[in-house]
């Protein structure tokens, strides 16, 4: 063997090991959760790190052993190796090893779970979170019985709703769905909770947040809920108490939709929405004069009507939530032609139609 052969093989091996370590490092970097921004999230983050390190040690140990065994014990001749059938002592030892790991893990995970599930007696803010296909509504309870006084935050896929919160205070979220199962998830809070449709006397799911840092944190639905699941986004804006009070004072109060305003003598087109579907997909309106679209929403899911010429948005109606809610949209004069109308909250084929102006 030439003297240079051995070091070069060594170099190759070192290079391979270095490449492997580098890959592991890069991959490892992606394996840490986002910065935790609530009290509970910090406990989850710490638990995750412990569990991840335990997993990494097991991984490196087992894979290292297998690679070593493959390299060391390659078949070199026809000699039959010792036919070792087993050993009760080692079986007992390696039953004990994972048992101990699992018990330690269970204790640690129970402690962290306690921190996550902790509830304060008196949350300073309580928000009712309503999930529905495919949006969110946040209702800030003010303590009195009249929902008309509550601050109500709504949004649309193009303009997702924003939940304002004071920092360093316990905030209670009460989660309800109006249709299918959704999940309220903010990655920076390291938690999600399912938003269930409730039947009968069941209590709704709740979660509590104590945000520690001012900032805007993106969130979205995490339980698959149908066509536009991916667009069911929102954000949480955590602010100081003073900013929060100012925001609350200026925020619009929820209640009934704006009163209808029908231009006398004008054409009225009827359109009804139910089960995420328009009752008609063909409407005809007169050219060059204003007309009214009387839009009735039969279900407790927000809908609206928007009108487009090609890609261009011409009219956007306010959203309205039923059941049995009616709103009159006054549409400005349109030149003759083909238009499309659809619900901004549910741009699916069932909630799209053609408006012929002639």
């Amino acid at each position, binding site marked *: 063997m030439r003297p240079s052969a051995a070091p070069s093989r060594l170099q190759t091996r070192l290079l391979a090991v270095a490449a492997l370590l580098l890959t592991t490092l890069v991959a490892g970097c992606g394996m840490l959760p986002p910065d935790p921004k609530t009290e509970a999230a910090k406990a989850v983050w710490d638990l995750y790190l412990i569990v991840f390190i335990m997993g990494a040690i097991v991984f490196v140990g087992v894979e290292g052993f297998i690679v070593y065994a493959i390299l060391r014990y390659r*078949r070199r001749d026809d000699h039959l190796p010792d036919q070792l059938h087993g050993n009760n002592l080692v079986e007992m030892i390696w039953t004990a090893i*994972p048992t101990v790991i699992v018990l330690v893990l269970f204790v640690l995970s129970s402690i962290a779970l306690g921190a996550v599930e902790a509830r304060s007696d008196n949350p300073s803010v309580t928000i009712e979170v309503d999930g529905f296909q495919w949006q969110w509504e946040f209702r800030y309870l003010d303590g009195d019985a009249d929902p008309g006084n509550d601050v109500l935050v709504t949004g649309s896929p193009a303009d997702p709703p924003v939940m304002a919160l004071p920092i360093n205070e316990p905030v209670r979220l009460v989660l309800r769905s109006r249709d299918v199962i959704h999940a309220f998830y903010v990655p920076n809070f390291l938690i999600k909770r399912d938003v269930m449709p409730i039947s009968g006397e069941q209590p709704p799911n709740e979660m509590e947040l104590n945000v520690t840092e001012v900032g805007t944190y993106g969130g979205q639905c995490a339980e698959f809920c149908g066509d536009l699941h991916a667009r069911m986004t929102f954000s949480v804006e955590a602010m100081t108490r003073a900013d929060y009070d100012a925001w609350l004072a200026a925020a619009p109060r929820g209640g009934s939709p704006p009163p209808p305003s029908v231009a006398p003598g004008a054409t009225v087109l009827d359109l009804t929405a139910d089960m995420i579907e328009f009752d008609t997909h063909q409407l005809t309106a007169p050219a060059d004069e204003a007309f009214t679209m009387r839009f009735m929403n039969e279900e407790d899911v927000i809908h609206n009507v928007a009108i487009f010429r090609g890609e261009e948005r011409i009219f956007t109606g306010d959203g309205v939530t039923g059941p049995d809610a009616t709103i009159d949209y006054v549409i400005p004069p349109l030149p003759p032609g083909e238009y499309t109308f659809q619900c901004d909250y549910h741009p699916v084929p069932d909630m799209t139609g053609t408006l012929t102006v002639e």
Partner: protein
Amino acid sequence: MATTTLEPRAETYRSSWVIDWLTTVDHKKIGVLYIVNSFLFFFAAGILALVIRSELAVPGLQFLDERTYNQAFTMHGTIMIFLFIVPVLSGFANYVVPLQLGAPDMAFPRINALSFWLLPLGGLLIFSGYLFGGAAAEGWTGYAPLSGGTYAAGVGTDLWLIGLTLVGTASILGAVNIIATVFKMRAPGMTLMRMPIFCWTVLVTAVLILLATPVLTAGLIALFIDRNYGGSFFDPTTGGQPILWQHIFWFFGHPEVYIVILPAMGVVSEILPVFSRKPLFGYRAFVFATIAIGLLSFSVWAHHMFTTGVVFLPFFAFMTALIAVPTGVKMFNWMATLWRGSISLTTPMLFALGFVTMFLIGGITGVMLSAPAVDFHLQDTYFVVGHLHYVFFGGSVFGVFAATYFWFPKITGRRLNERLGKVHFWIHFIGFNLAFFPMHPLGITGMPRRVSDYSPDAGWTLWNMASTAGAFMIAISVLPFLINVIATFINGERVGDDPWEANTLEWATSSPPPPYNFDKLPPIRSERPVFDLRHKHDVEHLSAEERP
């Protein structure tokens, strides 16, 4: 007086090979039908995976609308699980178990044929939604009330329910057949504790199927009644319970994970000893670990439901973590089997080692998810998608390919080309990790699963592009495999009855085996009768109980 002599196995009539295969009740032909049928569905569902990964490569909707995307991932999951992984392993069980037991056939050959033929029928019904206004689009888990008549009005979901009911029935019939075969058809000398480990894993799997699948089938029928006949099992607006569906589905769904992983563990536990030239270390411990996994699998279903807020977390968290113990025992036994062995890296061995190394990752991420506080963050994100693919694909599918390379010479008498096999393995192995590892960081940073689109500002684009590249690499790796199978079938190297110097009874008959399998059986005095036969003259290698 005229006498008639009957030739042994005289054919009373001749029929074309097509009729022969369509009407066969021979467990070996049915096994091959299972395997071929499963691979066809594997390719179909694989194409859907490429569609999904193409759409997700970069932000924005490029190829599909949301509905089509949702149909694609629903069909991908349903077909992969119910029409590929479960039946392909049933196919190997069908072919191999009677041979390993020294039996002439399965206990109920006609039921065996019936349970196969329900599969393509069920699969086509599930797919046929595409012809009738759109396939089911609620995910393979079909959560209520999204899968109810209000939110999934199309007939595609009804076809999905009917198809799955047929596939479930096929599974149940197959399980009954396996259990009867194992308990009633073993050759003399083949005691339970001398059964090959693959037979043990298949037996435990069959018991799991028998206990779990009827629950799913009942749930499918209940949902069908809800949708079509005004039932209210799962509809909250009429007093039903959406959470009931999740309990039913996962009471089946978690044992299902072991239904697809246990037989693959069995395959690996046959292959590692053969190519290490040692017996499986701790055969008894391995049998008990398999039974323990089977038992525990019925007490962990609600770990899929930690975030629903309605399950008792400590119990399910503890039981889930506890499954790591028997699984860990298996891992140690596999390692000890390699230890001081004489290892040949043939293609089946490479895939078996691929199973051990990749399943380990799926096992570790599974233990991470068993901590409820961690699960609250990771549930329904891409981390779970990564985890389940390391179990199903890194585990079961590697096991399926190991089985294919290992038993192909038994089924055809010809060995698959080793060079092409290794090319297949390495492209497959690297592509697999490139496709599925990035899903972990994606999920940890918050990307939910089952989204058709994601924000370009989320920082997920690079990992998604890597994952898509990996998916196409897996697709490319199928080419050398297909070429290998076809070329070998036509003109492969004939390698005799026992090319691997294997241990178990299937290698004691000819390749391919004759109808009814054996002309004569070797004595069965251990779990390795063929090894004993080969080494009967150098007894110093045998333990006392193995010596003839």
